[in-house]
C-alpha cells in the first residue's frame, strides 16, 4: 500500500477513534467536575498574570505546583508589606487551586488582619486615609473568604473563618451595619456546622453571633438550650450568660438573680459572671435583665456602693474613632 494511502487511512481511523471517545470523555469530564475532582478552566486573566512559562506549566497539569510557587512569592510580598501584590498574588493562587482551603484562609488573613493592622499603625498616612485603607483591607478579606466559601461550600473551616472575621471585636466596626454583620457571621457559622465536620466550638460561635442579632433572640435561645443540654463541655461562661440573658428577653418578669445563681452555683459566682458580662461592652452582647440581676445580687451580697459594678469607670471606648484619632 502506498504511504500516502496509509496516512489517509490513518487520519480516517484517528477521526473515527476520536468520534467514538468524544461523548465518553465529555461525560467523564462532567462527572469528575461534579465530584470536585476537576478544577475549573484557567481564566485568561490568570494566564496573563502568571506569565507564559508558568501558564504552560499550569496548563501542563501542574496547577497546584504553580500555586505553591506563587504562595512563596506572596509570602515575600507579605514580609515586604506590599499589600496590593499580596492580594493580586492570592487572587491568582486561588484561580489555580480553588479547592485548597489554606490559600483562601491565608489570603484573607493577609488582607483582613495583616494589611489592616499595618494601616492601623502606619503613621505615614493621614488618619482618614489610614482608616479607609484599614476598612478596605478588611472588606477585601471578607469578600475573599466569601468567594472561598462559595467555591468550597462543603469546607467547614472557610465558613468558620468567615464567621470569626465578621464577629471579631477589632474587625466588625469596619462593617456598616452591626446587625447585618452578626447575622452574616451566624449564617457563616451555621453553614460550617451543617457540613457535619466542624469542631465543637464552631457551634458555640454560631450561637454567640446569633445572640447578637436583634429580632432573632428566640432562634438563638433555642440553640442555646440545645447546646446546654448537649453536655458540660458547652457550659462556658459566655454560653451560660447568654442563655440567661435570652431567657430574660423571652420572659421579662423572670427573676434573673435566682436564675443566675442556679446557673453559676452561688450568689458570688453569679455576681462575678453578671459583672463580667456587663463590662463586655465592646462585644455588643445583649444585656436583657443583667442590670436588674446585678442590683438584686448587690442587695443580697450587701455589696457597698463604691464596689458596685455600676460605679466602675466605663471601659475606654475602643473603636475606629479612637484608633484613628491621631
Amino acid at each position, binding site marked *: 500500500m502506498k504511504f500516502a494511502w496509509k496516512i489517509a487511512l490513518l487520519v480516517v481511523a484517528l477521526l473515527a477513534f476520536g468520534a467514538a471517545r468524544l461523548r465518553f470523555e465529555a461525560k467523564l469530564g462532567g462527572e469528575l467536575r461534579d465530584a470536585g475532582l476537576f478544577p475549573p478552566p484557567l481564566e485568561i486573566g490568570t494566564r496573563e498574570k502568571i506569565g507564559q512559562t508558568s501558564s504552560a506549566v499550569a496548563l501542563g*497539569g501542574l496547577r497546584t505546583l504553580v500555586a505553591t510557587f506563587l504562595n512563596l512569592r506572596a509570602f515575600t510580598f507579605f514580609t515586604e508589606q506590599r499589600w496590593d501584590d499580596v492580594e493580586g498574588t492570592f487572587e491568582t493562587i486561588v484561580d489555580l487551586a480553588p479547592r485548597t482551603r489554606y490559600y483562601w484562609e491565608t489570603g484573607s488573613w493577609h488582607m483582613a488582619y495583616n494589611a489592616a493592622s499595618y494601616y492601623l499603625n502606619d503613621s505615614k498616612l493621614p488618619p482618614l486615609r489610614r482608616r479607609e485603607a484599614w476598612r478596605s483591607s478588611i472588606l477585601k478579606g471578607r469578600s475573599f473568604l466569601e468567594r472561598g466559601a462559595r467555591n468550597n461550600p462543603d469546607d467547614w473551616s472557610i465558613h468558620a473563618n468567615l464567621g470569626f472575621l465578621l464577629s471579631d471585636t477589632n474587625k466588625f466596626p469596619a462593617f456598616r451595619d452591626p446587625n447585618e454583620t452578626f447575622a452574616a457571621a451566624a449564617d457563616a457559622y451555621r453553614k460550617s456546622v451543617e457540613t457535619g465536620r466542624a469542631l465543637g466550638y464552631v457551634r458555640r460561635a454560631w450561637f454567640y453571633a446569633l445572640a447578637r442579632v436583634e429580632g432573632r433572640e428566640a432562634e438563638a435561645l433555642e440553640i442555646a438550650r440545645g447546646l446546654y443540654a448537649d453536655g458540660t463541655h458547652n457550659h462556658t461562661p459566655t454560653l451560660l450568660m447568654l442563655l440567661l440573658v435570652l431567657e430574660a428577653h423571652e420572659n421579662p418578669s423572670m427573676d434573673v438573680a435566682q436564675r443566675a445563681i442556679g446557673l453559676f452555683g452561688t450568689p458570688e459566682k453569679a455576681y462575678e459572671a453578671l459583672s463580667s458580662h456587663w463590662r463586655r461592652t465592646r462585644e455588643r452582647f445583649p444585656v436583657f435583665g443583667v442590670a436588674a440581676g446585678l442590683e438584686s445580687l448587690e442587695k443580697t451580697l450587701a455589696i457597698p456602693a463604691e464596689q458596685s459594678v455600676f460605679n466602675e469607670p466605663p471601659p475606654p471606648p475602643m473603636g475606629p474613632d479612637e484608633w484613628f484619632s491621631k
Partner: protein
Amino acid sequence: MSTPTSIPMQGSHFSRILTISTHTFTQLVRMKVFYFLAIFAVIAIASNFFELPQHEGPEAVGANVLRSIKSWSLGAMTLFSVVLSIVATALLLPKDVEDRTLYTILAKPVPRFDYLAGKLLGVLLLVFVSLALMDGLMTAVLHIRTGMVVAEQTEMAQAMGWPQDAIASLRADTLAHGPDASLQGAVFAVFLRASIMASLALLISTFSTSTLFTTIVSFLIYFIGHFQADARDVWLQAGQAGEGVFARLASLLLALVLPDFQLFNVIDAVIQGEALPLLALGKLTLVGVYYALFFTFASWFIFADKEF
C-alpha cells in the same frame, strides 16, 4: 527450482514482546536515567522546608507543608514521567537504526508489531519503575512528616484544652493530607498520562525522520492536549456563543485528533486533599488503555511495511 521457505516463528507473541521489552528496559537503564532519582530525592526533602508562618490554632499547623510535599513530588513525577516517556520513545527507533540493531531484529522472524509493542513496553516499564521509586520516596517522606504534624497539632490542641472529639476530628482532617490510596491513584494517573504520551511518541516516530522532530511534536501535542476539552466543549455547545462554522469545524477537528489530557488533572484535586474514587480511576484507566492501544496499532500500521 527452489521455492522460498518461510522461517517458522519461535515462541509466542508474548514471549517475544517480553524479551524485547526487557532488552529495551536494560538499554534505557544503561543510559543512566535513574540518576534523576537523586534530584527527586532533593526535591522531596526540600519541599519539607517550605513551612510558612501560620495564622491560627492547631488546625493550621503544618497543613501547608503536607500539601507542599505532595505538590512538589507529584509535579516532579509528572515532568519526569512525561519527559522520560517522550524522549525515551523518540530515541528508540532512530537509535536502533543507527546501531543497525533494527536490521538484525527485523531480519529474524519477529513480527513488526511485536517489535514495536516490546519497545513501548520497555519504555513503560522504565516509567513505571521510576514512578514506583519516586512514589516510595514521596510516601515515606509524607508519612514521616504527617506523623510529625499530627503530633505537633495534638500537643497544641491538648495545651489549649480541646476536647477529645475535636482532637480526633483534627487528626482525621490532617491524615486526609497524608499518604493514602487516593495519592497512589494520583501516581497511577501520572503513569497513565505518560503511557499515552509514550504510545503517541511511538506513532510519531514511525513516520518522523528525526528524534528532535518526534520530541518537539510530542511535547506540543502534550500541551495542546490540555486544551482539547475546551475545543470539545465549543463543538458540543455549538451555536450557543454564536461561533462561526469554521470555528466549530476547527474545534471538532482538534477534539477528534488530540487526546484529552485535562482528564488526568485529577492529580490536582488529590493534592488538595480530595479523595479519588476507584470508579473514576477505573474510567481514567479505560481512557489511557484506549489511547495506548490505538496509538500502538496505528504505529504498527505505518511501520508494518516501512522500508529501511
